[in-house]
């Protein structure tokens, strides 16, 4: 059993990180805080009391979600409609009890293929702000996640925030998640779509699919094909082959790969239906 450290400042935390191996704890919802967890035998670094780390705010370059912000903080935050998908995902991250403790940053660091937060953040072009004693660095979320349960985070580093660039907070968004039970489920498939419409045309579109491969993925080819096209009839122009080629789902006890592939197409069509409908003149 080791020490429990609860620094007030980021500098202090980064100093500890540089000094010794620690387990970083925030909401602990994925840490299996229960006593049999081996990872808690060493020093625990509790980052929830660090000044400013639980702030969600906008600055000159975009939005910054502090690493200790909980899912409930995201739900309560005053954010533009482009973030609706993130809020919708937040409402389905486990129970409200989990949402009150679990953090967005923890969700991405845990790097589960079924992490609910990842598809909406990908569709927001999120970057991960990483702190270390030697200075910070920033990595696009798509590069931050390398494989199931694996990230580019190095020893001595911690995630300090998630950043959403200015240009990506435009448009409306939707998240949709499929599970075997009505609530409290591990995703079988989930999609997050952001649609920015200008003068009846797709100015920008961001589509992400989760739980259909080792890490959640953006559908870049499909997005490219849809950009600049008219809003009218957009859902009908979803090309299933461009979706299928981007996904590598597996068959597990929750669903077959075939089901996942088909479900991803249906879910995308639905969220786009919804977004299109919302933008159409009544």
């Amino acid at each position: 059993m080791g020490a429990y450290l609860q620094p007030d400042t980021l500098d202090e935390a980064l100093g500890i990180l540089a000094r010794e191996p620690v387990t970083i704890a925030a909401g602990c919802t994925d840490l299996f805080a229960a006593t049999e967890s081996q990872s808690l035998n060493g020093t625990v670094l509790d980052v929830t009391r660090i000044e400013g780390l639980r702030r969600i705010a906008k600055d000159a370059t975009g939005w910054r979600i502090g690493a200790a912000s909980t899912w409930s903080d995201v739900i309560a935050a005053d954010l533009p409609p482009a973030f609706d998908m993130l809020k919708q995902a937040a409402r389905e991250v486990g129970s409200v009890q989990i949402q009150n403790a679990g953090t967005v940053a923890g969700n991405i660091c845990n790097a589960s293929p079924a992490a609910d937060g990842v598809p909406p953040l990908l569709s927001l072009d999120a970057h991960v702000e990483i702190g270390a004693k030697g200075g910070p660095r920033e990595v696009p979320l798509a590069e931050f996640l390398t494989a199931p349960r694996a990230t580019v985070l190095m020893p001595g580093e911690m995630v300090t925030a998630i950043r959403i660039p200015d240009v990506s907070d435009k448009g409306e968004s939707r998240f949709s998640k499929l599970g075997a039970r009505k609530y409290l489920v591990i995703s079988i498939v989930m999609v997050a779509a952001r649609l920015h419409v200008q003068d009846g045309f797709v100015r920008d579109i961001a589509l992400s699919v989760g739980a259909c491969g080792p890490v959640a993925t953006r559908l870049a080819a499909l997005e490219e094909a849809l950009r600049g096209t008219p809003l009218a009839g957009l859902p009908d122009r979803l090309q299933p082959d461009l979706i299928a080629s981007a996904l590598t789902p597996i068959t597990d006890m929750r669903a077959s790969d075939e089901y996942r592939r088909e479900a991803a197409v249906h879910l995308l069509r639905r969220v786009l239906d919804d977004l299109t409908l919302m933008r159409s003149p009544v």
Partner: protein
Amino acid sequence: MPDTLQTPAGHVRLGSNSGQPMTRRDGIAKVTGTATYAADNRPDRLAHAVFASAGIARGRVVSLNVEAAKSHPEVIEVITPDNRPALHLDPDGKSHPFSWRIEALQDNTVRYAGQPIALVVAETLEAATEGARLLAPEYDTDPARIGFENGEAYDPPAVGIGGNPSFSKGDFDTGFSNSEHRIGASVDTPAQYHNAMEPHAIVAEWSGDHLTIDTPNQAIHLARGAFAGYFGIPPENVTLRSPFIGGGFGSKAILVGPQILAIMAARMVDRPVKLVLRRDQMFGPVQHRGATRQKLRIGTDGNGLIKALEHEATASTSSFDDFIEGAGNASLNMYASPAIVARHSAVRVDTGTPGPMRAPGEASGSAALEIAIDKAAEAVGMDPLEFRLRNYAETDPASGKPFSAKSLRECYELAAQKFGWSDRPLAPGQMRDENGMLVGWGMGSALFPAPMFAAQARATLRRDGTALVETSGADMGQGAWTALAQIAADGVGLPVDRIEFMSGTTDQPDAGVAGGSGHTASAGGALFEAGSNAVQKLADLATADPESPLFGAGNTGVEAREGRLFRADDESRSESYADILERAGLERIDAMGSGGRDPANTEARAMFSHGAVFAEVKIDPDLFQIRVSRLIGAFAAGRIINPHLAKSQLTGGMIWGIGFALHEEGIHDLRSGRPLNADLAGYHVPVNADAPHVEALLVDEDDPYVNALGIKGVGEIGITGSVGAIANAVWHATGKRISSYPIHIDALLS
């Protein structure tokens, strides 16, 4: 329904307390957190135990790093097969029909993943957990045998507990081949785990050769004898307390290995020891519902009359013990047929031994039977309800005996009307809701036997006008403490608020088993008889006393109510219990009673509760997500003691039906034999949002034969009928017949 019973005693009326929708007597304790469950006990000098679980499904433990565990400063003792003290009974023996072969570290063999392979006792839970981790076991691994294809098949000598593995009546082959319509149905059901919210727990403490244990138990006196047997002490040296059980569903009726380990540890370290299973440890040594593979064939004539019915079931059990889910027997008592065959076979796999789980046999069997019946109705082109009515069994199909009472027709009628069944289109795929969801309606018939167990109780009338009633009944949520107190109050002729009800420990007379839906009837019968016997003693005193207004009423009889005895022929002549006791110079008067059934009735009649369940499902037409939007059942189960609580039991069972149909499935890795979903995130049970509209209706039923009080049970019947109703509703929505449970969303894709 006559409200003065002829037996056991005509002077006591049933009904002033029984039948009332009282709220739970243990309600305040449960909503304030003061109800104590086993793991809530914290005696002085308490030590904590954690067992290490086998990480393989078959083989041997070849090494355990006991030294590492013992070097942890707070670890007190490590128990392995090498240092485990001898038990008085062989854990691999079976001393009575309710005993299972258990794992008590008898050797280094591993028979299933999750089996206890060592026990660590420490000052704290954290240290015991760490100690168990430090053991770092190494194994000699044999290939695991998981699944029907890989296990060893055999013909079981019995199904369930002592049930008949095969049954045949009439000539099935001829009946089937001569039938105008013939259908077959194959239905698989998976292993299911009880997963009571309270994990199995025990706090054990020795004082000399006297043992005190706090552990949830559904059969307190039976367990006392079994615990005493393992440790070679007389049963009266065991005090077992089980005042609150955090859900049992069958898994806490039978003694399990970890309990023995904790008691053993308490003796070794000479301190009280607490052992609480982790949730993942609930997927091994504490039983489950075995998987089944069922095949049915039904032949009908042109009018839709069943001519032949066959139900074959293969069930999985462990490699070392036998509990066979008697699924095929679900076809013996429901639908009329001149030819009926039921047959069972079994397959041994490397899992823990199954055990009774809420409606053992009936739940899985009914889940398949009701699909087959629906297919038969479809083949005839008949409405499923009309088909079931056409084949209504007026006498028990298996034995030919008359039913003690059967009100299934009334159940069909009431539930169908409430549901709106008459608007149902015959063909599938016809209905959509306002959101474009596919809508389907299906139904199933529900049935459960009405067993009784030997039970005793004591009633004591006290001079202050109250009564103490005692029986070792177990309340695991079914409301025993409330319903039994209501019956007891009627037995002693007092309002229920003047009853002190003591239950839940070995200090009270044996209340038998809280299981098989027979507890209220058995323990209730004992309480009622004890009460009426005590009242009879009081009446004997009064009617023989010249100073009593009841003097000489011995022949005309007296009636007891509200704490007074009245002359049966003259209401104006009465006397209070208190006055009778006072004049006799007695502080109290007591009597024993026992529950039971007239053996002549048992011989002559078939005894079952019945019900009908109607389900509406809504299914996403593209993604096939299924939601049970309505589930409405009507049930007839003899006299209902507390309609408020009986409805909760029934809706609880029906929601288990939702879990069975759509969610629950214990999955083992075929290669390693390890459970893949041994937690509540992976093993899905229904959550609140899965059960938006579940309703149970009660049908009055007067059963003069089932027992003196006319009580059947409601604990298990709710799950039967419901599962098939949901599967049939899925067919009605999609046109797709289900061949395995739970119904996977991607199974509807093809």
